[in-house]
């Protein structure tokens, strides 16, 4: 009886009061959420305001708002300048190479690990191959520089022992992309196998048993069961990867490039870093960055839509 009155009263109270009641009921949840939300406001939404600098002649001591409007000047300067084509090309090319070489490497490695007969050996290989993921980019870049050094670098020592001229790889633009890709491979291929290894575990083992009874060999099982079994994972990872096609982190590039290799090494993010923070052309760099961010947003949106459609999966 009592219950009935409560519910009929709440109907009378209407939507607004219901909302008020729910908010009051969950007030502790909102209080918990507040510091977290404040963080996003300060370090995600507040920086958005700085994007205005792209349309202004931003002077640090005047502030974003008071700086003079220049419209699209910064964008025009970028697109008519000599670097636009170069850095966009380099960014896209490094990504294409990475999709061709680094992306499949993880899949192949996961499949090969899966074929290992000894469980102990398999665990050992996995443990070792994940390790580089835990080593900092600075250290890895340091290793690359050391190994390729023209004086003591082990690579050049070998080249010399084989009777060839030493090569100072890092000053040769034609080697930069290869070096970068090999470095990323060393860093990430092992860790990248985890997702495929877990997909491989999920493949129905009854399928393998049935295939064995039918007399299928390992090769046949690989082609007919294993690969189709992990295909959805591969497709989704590929789509996510393609969503990142316009992104190459400046963190690694700026450690390895030199003015002499800018021709092939300079990417959008490293150019933004250099022109913005080293040469202090803040507004110009913001414009370049904004252009990059928008293209990246479009790519992510497309890839997300596709992956939602084919795999019922999205990056949220």
């Amino acid at each position, binding site marked *: 009886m009592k219950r009935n009155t409560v519910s009929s009263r709440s109907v009378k109270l209407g939507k607004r009061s219901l*909302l008020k009641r*729910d908010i009051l009921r*969950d007030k502790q*949840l909102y209080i*918990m*959420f507040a510091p*977290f*939300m404040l963080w*996003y406001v*300060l*370090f995600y939404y507040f920086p958005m305001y*700085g*994007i205005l*600098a792209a349309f202004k002649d931003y002077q*640090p001591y005047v*502030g*974003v708002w008071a700086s003079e409007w220049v419209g699209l000047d910064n964008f025009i300067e970028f697109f008519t300048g000599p670097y636009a084509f170069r850095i966009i090309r380099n960014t896209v090319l490094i990504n294409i190479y990475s999709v061709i070489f680094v992306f499949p490497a993880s899949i192949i490695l996961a499949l090969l*690990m899966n*074929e*290992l007969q000894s469980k102990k050996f398999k665990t050992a290989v996995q*443990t*070792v191959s*994940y*390790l580089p993921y*835990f*080593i*900092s*980019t*600075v*250290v890895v*870049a*340091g*290793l690359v*520089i*050391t*190994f390729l050094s023209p*004086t*003591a*670098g*082990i690579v*050049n*020592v070998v080249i*010399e022992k084989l009777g060839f001229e030493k090569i100072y790889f890092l000053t040769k633009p034609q080697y930069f992309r290869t070096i970068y890709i090999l470095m990323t491979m060393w860093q990430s291929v092992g*860790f990248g196998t*985890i*997702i495929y290894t*877990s997909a491989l575990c999920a493949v129905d083992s009854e399928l393998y048993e049935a295939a*064995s009874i039918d007399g299928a060999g*390992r090769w046949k099982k690989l082609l007919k069961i294993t690969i189709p079994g992990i295909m959805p994972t591969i497709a989704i990872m590929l789509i996510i990867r393609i969503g990142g096609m316009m992104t190459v982190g*400046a963190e690694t590039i700026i450690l*390895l490039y030199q003015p002499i290799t800018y021709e092939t090494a300079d990417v959008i993010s490293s150019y*933004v870093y250099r022109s*913005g*923070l080293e040469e202090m052309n803040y507004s110009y760099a913001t414009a370049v960055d904004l252009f990059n*961010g928008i293209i990246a*947003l479009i790519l992510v*949106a497309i890839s997300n839509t596709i992956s939602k459609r084919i*795999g019922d*999966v999205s990056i*949220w």
Partner: protein
Amino acid sequence: MKKSISEKCFDTFNIILMIVIMFITLYPLWYVLVASFSSGIEVTNGNVVWWIKDFETEAYTRIFEDSSIWISYANTIFYSVVGTLLSVVLTSLGAYPLSKKRLRGKKFLTGFILLSMWFTPGTIPMYICLRNLNLLDSRMGILMLGAAQTFYVILMRTYFESIPDSMEEAAKIDGASDFQVFLNVYMPLSVASIVTIALYYFVIRWNSYFWAMIILKDPNKIPLQVLLKKFVVEMTANNSELSKIDYTVTSRETTIFATIVISTIPMIVLYPFIQRFFVKGVMIGAVKG
């Protein structure tokens, strides 16, 4: 079942290939270790390949004497430990309310943070923001940057969602408030996931250098990776002397190796223990998928 010859061949080939891959992975690290204990001249002449040549600990003595390395080491530990704590607190405080279906405005609040997975304001706007907040050249700035990562917030939310509502209801009947439910019921149940996320944050913090390099000018505040970055870049440029220490050309490389060794050892020592958590983290991410 008996193996055919071709299968045996494949197995042998596969094992050899895996050994080669393990070698490629481990050799650079091994090289740095043995070179750091070898004499500078032997390293510069390219005589160090498999094992220590002309054993000496000079490189280590040199960096042990150099206070700048210890200061930055202490900074790294501070940023990593305090930063990780901050991240874990923020991430779980944010993820818990978002895991409640009944929460009004849940969709809006989720969208509010999800936007950051699609679009980032960019390096310069971030820099301007830090300048406006007066966080340039401040330790607080380093701690705050990247304190919450949307991806891990979502992972944590997914985990909280997987805990049955009945747990909450039972505690509520006993008169617990939302905050008590969170602290006394959900947190203890989520220890494994929290550890996983904490380790991800920790490794990111320990290894990052980019923003620290941009915003910190005071050498007393820089983390180890920024110092290492200076060494590494100077090695590329092959010019000028390093910090205050008097380096000869031959000892520069061994000094860098020794610094790499002492900065990487904590990770390598922790690695066997934390590895499984990382594997688990990737899997949770995949399951949510």
